[in-house]
């Protein structure tokens, strides 16, 4: 497994405020990396920098050795990076299937036929367990459904790297487990590398291979979930009183995915 993404000295300033301060991490092909940290720690900014929604103030982001920092979102998408939104942004006037098919059609890095786009859309919907009824409107989806639609739309572009932004926000416990398993399945079945930004740590720690913890725009810890969960700095600024329960969850992660049958 080679290195897919290399982030070096990445910095983003908004006026006098430095949201992301010289952060760096590597991502191996096929890996699930958790990007975590308290509110305002720079997770979403980092995410937007990789996805092209923001241009870095300094530093580099290399995908397979090619610089992608500062490229437009459309270009980044065509290079095989797909993202979801924390607050779902469906195209409400289109049906669910059309939402996904549109992404398949335009997200492919070379021209594909419409029938191919619809086929890819159905595939992505099966993978995310969305109902494949072509007439179904977005309005009929609940919070979990909208999150799934975000994922399906991202997957339909056939990415190599998926940026999942708080896929668990607003879900109940059971839905969270399902969503986490889904990301795990996506990696296993499609070989897609994933960066997962999340606020809720327990579930994330069960699934990710490695974690990067941000605080005030800086990396304060990175490594295996087990090590990160015991890192005194992480416990202090982020985990706080939850530390013990999360450490237990991480320790029990071997049993985790199998136990949560959906």
């Amino acid at each position: 497994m080679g290195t897919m993404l290399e982030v070096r000295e990445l910095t983003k300033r908004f006026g006098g405020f430095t949201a992301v301060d010289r952060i760096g991490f590597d991502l191996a092909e096929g890996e699930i990396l958790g990007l975590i940290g308290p509110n305002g720690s720079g997770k979403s900014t980092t995410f937007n920098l990789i996805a092209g929604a923001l241009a870095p103030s300094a530093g580099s982001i290399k995908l397979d050795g090619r610089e992608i920092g500062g490229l437009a979102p459309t270009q980044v998408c065509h290079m095989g990076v797909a993202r979801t939104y924390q607050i779902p942004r469906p195209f409400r006037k289109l049906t669910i299937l059309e939402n996904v098919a549109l992404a398949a059609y335009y997200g492919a890095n070379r021209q594909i036929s419409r029938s191919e786009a619809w086929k890819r859309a159905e595939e992505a919907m099966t993978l995310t367990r969305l109902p494949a009824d072509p007439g179904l409107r977005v309005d009929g989806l609940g919070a979990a459904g909208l999150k799934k639609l975000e994922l399906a739309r991202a997957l339909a572009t056939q990415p190599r790297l998926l940026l999942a932004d708080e896929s668990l926000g607003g879900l109940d416990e059971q839905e969270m487990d399902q969503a986490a398993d889904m990301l795990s399945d996506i990696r296993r079945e499609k070989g897609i590398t994933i960066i997962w930004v999340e606020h809720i740590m327990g579930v994330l720690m069960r699934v990710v291979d490695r974690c990067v913890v941000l605080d005030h725009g800086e990396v304060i810890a990175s490594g295996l979930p087990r090590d990160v969960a015991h890192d005194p700095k992480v416990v202090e600024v982020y985990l706080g009183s939850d530390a013990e329960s999360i450490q237990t969850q991480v320790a029990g992660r071997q049993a985790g995915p199998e136990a949560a049958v959906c």
Partner: protein
Amino acid sequence: MGRFGLVSLGHGAFLGVGAYGTTMLWNHIGLTPWIGIPISVVGAGVIGLLIGLPCFRFRITGHYFALVTLALTEVARLLIVALRDQTGGSLGVTPVGMVSPEEPISIYAFQFASKYVWFYIMVVVWLVGLLIWRAVDRSMLRYAMEAISQEEDAAASVGVQVTRTKLTVTVISAAMTAFGGAMYGQYQQYINPETVSGIAISLQIVFAVIAGGMFVQLGPTIGAVITILLGEGLRLGFGHEFHGLDVTIYGLMLILFIIYMPRGVLGKAAEVFSTPRSRPSAPSAQPGE
């Protein structure tokens, strides 16, 4: 364009480019409208591109886009007036006539004395227009535009080339409008800055589209019928006593339509007559989730 969230008040300019372009080429260098019309249509497309590119690059949308295009239509009108040596200024201009009672049809000059000929020409033009609408409506372009008009960032993030897509729609729209302008000039055999450019005509176009219903294929057609009937009715009823009365009434009706019938007459009719489609009403999750 309107259905994709781009309200253009600049279509008067494109109409003017089509009408004046064709007539000027014919009057000054004797170029047959068979070539003059395509040149004018392409010219309008290029102007659409030039106006659209900076607007879309800098994300000028909504009210601001309407204002930019409003300026465009006024620039077009003022240019026509200012270049009076070439265009006849505010008095208007007549294409050099090639038809006479002995020879009522000139294919070369695209001039036909008979209204019947024009009727059939316009039916064909109308049908072609509807076909273009349908082609756009069934293409991926429509999905892309729908997506852009609702969630521009999300559309970009799934690979939709936002600026290029908007420009495509703008150019198609500008070109079709210019073609309409050219047809109008050839039919009327007289054009002036007020009838083919400026705020009034742009407003009339927007009004027709909104009144008829911009989401329904025949909406703009019905809208045009309403608009013209209204215009002619006012003219017959009040003569020219109240200058600007028609525009005032359009403005008023525009507001009423936007408030009470935002999808237009046909859109409303479709709403009333169609039974609610099978859409899941409960906002809860789908079964199987």
